[in-house]
Every structure is written in structure tokens, then in C-alpha cells.
């Protein structure tokens, strides 16, 4: 079976730059654990390579854009490409974000190079400029061909000539550093050298992957593509001919469509919790509204929402001419199993749905999960992770973190510290001297703008923080202050100014 592989090089960098609205030619790299995972052409011109440490990369190119590795973002951005390819040729098999295989369209476009041209034109139209296409008898060869194709070009390996093409490749294509190193030390530099060895020897000496590639070079080892099923089309619409001008008639005529909408979701074990109802008049969209349901929409609920929307639009005057079309678009669907009332109370999937609703109202990043991490100040010891994303780059909690405050932890940790004031008995602001000494004992303090000055009843500290001491003039010292009203605060002297970081409320 002829296979076509589409390769978008440096996809993680492209997706991250597109998300930040930055142009693609700037040198940028995606890092995980301070090691380059992917970089674009601009960064490669400076000699930056995969596996390089961040400080080395930044020393070669100081203006390098540093991006975090977010696999979800890459996959989300690639979904657009997959949908476009499915329009051209159903049955695509995504291998990873940036790399997708499909059955070669063959003669439909008049030949394989023409099919490649159609696909690359389609993707360039989406804004993905760097597209490379490889076509061969099976997946591995097609992927290697794609990696050797020119930008926006396709490299076609004719049927039965995979072996000839593969024999020219270096052994690095095995993508297993240990095996590659061993082969090189044995003097086997190309796949042709590997192909010359007997099958049994390769299997017993070099492992499964080398044996499989050995078989591919000899014309076997083809694997079927695991193609994905395209997401089903769940939108339902009804046209009115002649056009209708009364809300009641429209609702009556749309009833069957609403029933079909709910039934086709039901066949897929889904229910709709958020729907967009669009009403067209004279061929133009006249009214569109998003409706939420606390449980899920049944046919009657849908007709109710349509009626409310029509009556409202007619009264306001959005709808002036007769209605020609009504469309129901499911915005959020959920598994029907999540919404059945459980015998022992709710399930976590129900919670996820509630969170999705809040995210729909306020935006993806508005709902966060609190997580703990290591650090010295209370604000450093916690982090917020947007709901549904994996927490990344958290500092380990197990380390000692000298200078951190012993428990109990403060119940209120201000995201923006408050400007505070601390005076000694003579009414002078307290200053920090060298080696953590203070100019006086705190006698009066004011934790924030909304609070009042009050005498200090008890205090503890100073806790000097050994953090960024190399930054000029920065000497961070923490205090716990208890006022005469009994409330306790965590107050910090950050060089010159006093700030309140947290409250033991």
C-alpha cells in the first residue's frame, strides 16, 4: 500500500510561536529541563542543536526566544492540519504533532507528485509554510523520504525501490543512540552495510528495531496505518421554503430537527450541554445565541430555547425578514454516562463538566488547580496550574530550602505584596545593615494601605534569605509581626522597602 507522509519540521516551535503571535523567522527553541527539544531554522543558523543546554544555546544566540514544552499545545495546533488533510483524503494516521501519514491518493489527482502538490498547497493556505512530503511503499521509507524532501516539495520513491533509497541512508535513522553508536564502531555507516548482514545475526545482536529496519530494507516489514476516524458532523439544520415569519411556525417546523439532533447524539452515547442556535433570514445570519443547560438538552429544551431566542430577536428588531434556516450546533458534548445519576453520588466527570462551563464563561486559564512546590517565600511555595494542563517546572519540595518560614503556613498569600511600613521606638523607619543586623527593634507597623498603624505586640526574625545575593543591593529578610490586635503578618524587608507578603488570618 502506497503511503504518503506529511512532515511539518520544528512543529513545537512553530505552534508556540503562532500561539504568541510571533513571526516564524525569529530564532526560537523549545526547552524541557533546560535542554533544547526543538529549534527552528533561525536558531540552527546560530549552531543551536537538539540536546544542547540552555546556557550554551543562549550564549550562541542571546536573542533566542525561549519557549516551554507543552505537548497539549502542539497537538491542539496540529488538529487544524489534520482536519484540512481529512477534507482531501479521509483516513489519516497522526504519528505525532508535526508528522502525519495517510494512504497515498494515487491517481485521483493525476499522479503522486500532483497529489503531493495539492496537499502542500492546501497546508500553505493554512499558513503552514514549511511542508515536506514523502511518498513510498510503506511508512518508514515514506517518513525518511519526507525528511529528505525540499520545502513544499514531495519526494516520491517509486514502487519496489524502497530498498535502493534506504540503502543510501546513514544508520542514524534508527533513532536509537546506543544501537547507532554500536553500528558505527563496527564500521557499518549506512543501511546498505546493515542490509548486507544475515537476518538472524541482526536480530540477535542489534535488537528489535534494527531487525525491523533490516526487513524493511529487504522489502518487507510493512505495517498497516492506524487511521483515525474523523470526528462526526453533529450540526443539524432545517431550511424553510417558503420562508416563515412567525416564531410559533418556526418552532413547530424545527421540532423534527431538534429530535434528530438529540437522537444522533444519543446514538453516539453523547448528550449536549451547550448549544449554539443560529437563525438565518434571507440567507444571512440574523441571530445567534449560545445556550447552556444545567443537565443536558432534550428536544423540548431545544425548541424552548429557539422560541425564546426568536421572540427576543423579533422584539429587539434583529429579525426583520422571514426566516429561511435554523441551525443547532453542539458546542459542548459530554458522555451520556457522566450525566446519568449515579447510585453513590456524582462522578469526577461531572466536576469536569462544571469546570468546563466556568472555563467557557471566563476563559481557559481562569480555572486553576493549586499545587505545592519548594521555595522560600510563601508565594514561591505554591503555584497555579491551568485546569487540564500538566504542571511543569515545579521546584522539588524535598530540598531543605534554608530561609523558609517554619509552619504553620499563612492562610492568605498575596499575589501582589502590599507596601508596608515598619518603625522603631523612635519613629524612624527600620533599615537593614550589613550581615542581617537591624537599625532598631520594630515598635510600630502598618501592613498595608487598607490597614492602620499599630504597635507591635511580638515579633520574630530576622530570617535572612540566601537568594540572589549576587544581585546588587538585594538583601531579603523576613519577619513575623503580631500587632496588638492579635493578628499576625509576614513582613519582608526587600533591600530598602518593606512589603507584606502574607497574613496569618
Amino acid at each position, binding site marked *: 500500500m502506497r503511503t504518503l507522509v506529511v512532515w511539518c519540521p520544528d512543529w513545537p516551535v512553530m505552534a508556540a510561536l503562532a500561539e504568541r503571535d510571533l513571526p516564524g523567522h525569529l530564532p526560537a527553541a523549545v526547552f524541557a529541563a533546560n535542554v533544547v527539544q526543538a529549534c527552528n531554522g533561525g536558531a540552527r543558523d546560530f549552531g543551536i542543536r537538539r540536546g544542547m543546554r540552555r546556557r550554551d544555546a543562549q550564549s550562541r544566540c542571546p536573542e533566542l526566544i525561549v519557549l516551554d514544552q507543552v505537548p497539549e499545545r502542539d497537538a491542539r495546533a496540529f488538529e487544524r492540519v489534520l482536519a484540512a488533510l481529512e477534507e482531501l483524503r479521509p483516513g489519516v494516521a497522526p504519528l505525532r504533532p508535526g508528522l502525519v501519514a495517510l494512504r497515498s491518493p494515487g491517481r485521483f489527482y493525476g499522479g503522486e507528485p500532483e497529489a503531493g502538490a495539492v496537499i502542500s498547497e492546501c497546508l500553505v493556505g493554512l499558513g503552514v509554510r514549511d511542508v515536506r512530503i514523502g511518498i513510498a511503499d510503506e511508512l518508514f521509507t515514506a517518513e525518511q523520504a519526507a525528511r529528505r524532501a525540499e520545502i513544499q516539495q514531495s519526494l516520491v520513491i517509486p514502487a519496489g525501490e524502497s530498498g535502493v533509497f534506504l540503502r543510501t541512508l546513514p544508520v542514524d535513522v534508527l533513532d536509537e543512540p546506543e544501537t547507532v553508536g554500536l553500528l558505527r564502531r563496527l564500521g557499518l555507516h549506512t543501511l546498505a552495510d546493515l542490509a548486507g548482514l544475515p537476518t538472524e545475526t541482526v536480530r540477535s545482536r542489534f535488537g528489535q528495531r534494527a531487525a525491523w529496519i533490516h526487513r524493511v530494507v529487504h522489502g518487507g516489514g510493512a505495517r498497516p496505518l492506524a487511521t483515525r476516524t474523523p470526528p462526526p458532523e453533529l450540526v443539524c439544520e432545517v431550511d424553510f421554503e417558503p420562508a416563515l415569519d412567525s416564531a410559533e411556525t418556526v418552532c413547530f417546523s424545527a421540532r423534527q430537527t431538534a429530535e434528530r439532533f438529540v437522537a444522533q447524539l444519543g446514538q453516539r452515547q453523547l448528550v449536549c450541554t451547550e448549544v449554539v442556535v443560529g437563525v438565518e433570514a434571507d440567507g444571512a445570519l440574523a441571530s445567534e445565541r449560545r445556550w447552556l443547560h444545567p443537565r443536558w438538552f432534550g428536544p423540548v429544551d431545544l425548541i424552548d430555547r429557539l422560541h425564546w431566542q426568536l421572540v427576543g430577536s423579533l422584539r429587539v428588531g434583529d429579525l426583520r425578514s422571514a426566516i429561511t434556516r435554523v441551525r443547532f450546533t453542539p458546542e459542548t458534548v459530554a458522555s451520556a454516562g457522566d450525566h446519568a445519576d449515579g447510585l453513590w453520588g456524582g462522578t*469526577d466527570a461531572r466536576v469536569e463538566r462544571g469546570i468546563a462551563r466556568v472555563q467557557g464563561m471566563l476563559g481557559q486559564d481562569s480555572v486553576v488547580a493549586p499545587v505545592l512546590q519548594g521555595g522560600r517565600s510563601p508565594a514561591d511555595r505554591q503555584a497555579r496550574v491551568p*485546569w487540564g494542563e500538566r504542571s511543569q517546572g515545579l521546584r522539588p519540595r524535598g530540598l531543605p530550602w534554608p530561609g523558609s*518560614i517554619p509552619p*504553620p503556613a499563612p492562610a492568605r498569600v498575596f499575589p501582589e505584596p502590599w507596601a508596608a511600613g515598619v518603625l522603631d521606638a523612635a519613629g524612624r523607619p527600620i533599615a537593614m545593615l550589613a550581615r542581617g543586623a537591624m537599625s532598631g*527593634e520594630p515598635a510600630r507597623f502598618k501592613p498595608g494601605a487598607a490597614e492602620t498603624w499599630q504597635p507591635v505586640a511580638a*515579633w*520574630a526574625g530576622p530570617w535572612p534569605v540566601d537568594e540572589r545575593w549576587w544581585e546588587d543591593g538585594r538583601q531579603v529578610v523576613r519577619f513575623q509581626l503580631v500587632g496588638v490586635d492579635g*493578628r499576625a503578618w509576614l513582613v519582608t524587608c526587600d533591600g530598602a522597602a518593606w512589603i507584606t507578603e*502574607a497574613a496569618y488570618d
Partner: protein
Amino acid sequence: MEDGLARPELDVLPGLSQVIRLRAGGSYQVDSASLALALMAGPSRGGAWCAAVGWDDFGAEAAAELGVVLERTILVPDPGEAWLEATAALVDVTALVLVKPPVRVPEGVAAKLSARLRKRGAVLVSLGSWPRPEALISVAEPQWTGLGRGEGHLQSRQVVVEVRRGAAPPRRTALRFPSLDGVTVAERVETPGQARRPLREVG
């Protein structure tokens, strides 16, 4: 309560259960962040989901120390204008919602939310004024121990928790919260006034 059925109660931390009872469907007004977190810890430890709306200064470490399971905690730190809609959406799916209302809450809104709370069997704890709460819980006379003039560190706090239900006289209880050993969250303090005094001659 209105339909004559007894409403179930939510779990409350052992040290606080003698003082405060959270009945499903009720809204409670609290004036201390740590007490609100301690109220959240009860259902959270029992396996329920909890949420906090409008708390931009949520102390995650303090919450974890009090027993809140952060994996089952949802934060909406900055809901802006839509804080009420976010609260209502979370009331549908969680057992307890902490909320810090940014503006004065009209009675009608509170009544609507209260109906939703009763339907879902959830509890609302408001840090800040809430119209007609089922109970008004306040913390008075905090006294921290463990630090002096430049030595030690904050260890435990003795407070008087005052619970006011409707027009009934307030119930005052002295608590050590957080307690000295750091294991139990709160423990009762026997105040000298409650101990029986020996009779003595007067006049």
C-alpha cells in the same frame, strides 16, 4: 428544611465539629481565611470536591496543612464580573464553595443561589458579608504563642470562635487553632471562667 426533611450535615474537622455544623444547602459567613479553609478541609478530606471563587490570595500550603486535598480543589482566582455565575456553576458540581464576594450581594441573588444550594446539597462559605447567612462565624481575641521579641516563631493561636445563628444568642467557644502539636487542627481550651470555682464567703 422547608420541606420538613432533616438536611444532611457535611463533615467538619474533629476539633471544630463541636463548635460548627455545616448543613447541606446552607450559606455561612466567616471572617477568617484560616477558619474558612478549615471548614473546607472537612468535606475535602471526606472525598468531596471543593472550590474557591474570587480568592486571589489562597494560601495553598496552609490549606494543605489544615487537611484540604488540593487535587480535589478548584480555584477561580479572578472571576471578575462573572463571579456569581462561576459560583453557581461550581455549586452544581462541588460540595462546598468558598466565595469572596467583590461587591455587596443583593438579597434576591442570595435567595436564588440558596435555592440552588439546597437542590444540590452544597454549602456556601462566604468570606465577607452575605445576606441572611444560616450562621455567622467570627473569630475574636486571637492570641498567638511561640514568638517573643525577636525569638521563636508563630506556633499556635488561641481564639474565641463565635457562632451566631439567627436571633439566638451567640455561642462562644475558646479554641486553640492551629493547635500546638501541629497534628490536630483545633482543640478546645477550658477557660477558667467555665471551671467550677470553690464557694467562698462574700460581703
